[in-house]
């Protein structure tokens, strides 16, 4: 009888897929840090069942006088569908390195990182912009999000 009652309770509590859908900040955990004065490392930890599109990342630095000139992406997984064709996606984690050809020399810079991803249950999130303040000499990961 106890087992039956537990099944009834579990059945009542079980909701649809939407009940387990994470907030985007939980699904895609962002951080960024200066690896060296001319190198920024951006990291996203991606929850199980979620993914980020490689071609939807974009990065910008403020002040704009500090340029970004190259991005190093790790190998991605291929994903194919009838609408977008072949797309590259990341699961679990992705770490991207950005090169600053003219380092800010002691001044703080703001990194703006745009990403967009989805959940396997068939839900996609709007592109999210994360901002991280980076300063030479401070190698602690930083980052917060804004839509």
């Amino acid at each position, binding site marked *: 009888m106890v087992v039956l009652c537990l099944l009834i309770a*579990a059945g009542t509590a079980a909701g649809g897929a939407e*009940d387990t859908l994470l907030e985007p900040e939980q699904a895609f955990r962002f951080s960024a840090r200066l690896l060296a004065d001319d190198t920024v490392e951006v990291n996203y930890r991606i929850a199980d069942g979620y993914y980020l599109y490689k071609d939807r990342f974009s990065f910008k630095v403020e002040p704009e006088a500090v340029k970004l000139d190259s991005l190093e992406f790790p190998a991605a997984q291929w994903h194919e569908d009838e609408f977008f064709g072949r797309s590259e996606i990341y699961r679990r984690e992705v770490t991207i390195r950005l090169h600053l050809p003219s380092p800010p020399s002691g001044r703080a810079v703001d990194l703006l990182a745009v990403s967009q991803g989805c959940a396997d249950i068939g*839900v996609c999130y709007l592109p999210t912009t994360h901002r991280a303040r980076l300063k030479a000499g401070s190698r602690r990961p930083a980052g917060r999000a804004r*839509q």
Partner: protein
Amino acid sequence: MTYLARASLFVAVAVGAALAGFFLSPYAQAPKIDTAALLATSLPDLDGQRRRVEDWRGKVLVVNFWATWCLPCLEEIPEFVRMQSRLGPNGLQFLGIAVDQEDKVRDFAQVHQVNYPILIGHAGAIELARLAGNAQGGLPYTLVLDRRARVIKTFHGGLTEAKLAPVIIPILQR
């Protein structure tokens, strides 16, 4: 303990467990839906005419928040087009609210011959989707309203006719 007492105890415990399950479940904290805000929303359609969601009161209305960058959104639209053709004469009306740019929406609608109105909400429409009960802001997000503009059901994620029809058909027959 008599059979009757055991049966009564069984029923009491089962009902208690079911109630506990409900109140501990996400349904107990179901997101609020600001139906009035949704109905009063005025956005331009693909002809540039401002339309209010309320304009379709009297129909069984399926309001679908979507975007062209969202794969599950695109996958469900051909099914919506087929359902609109078949059940439109019975009072079914799909309405797309695009959380996207007008040019991209227009191109998609032409290529895929979307046969129902689409309102252009740009990225800001996601706030309307949140007001309409979509707390996490994911897409697609779909609401079914009856002919009196009451929200009957909401869906997060991609839909198929098999999931939508059992909700819509009984409302159309009322």
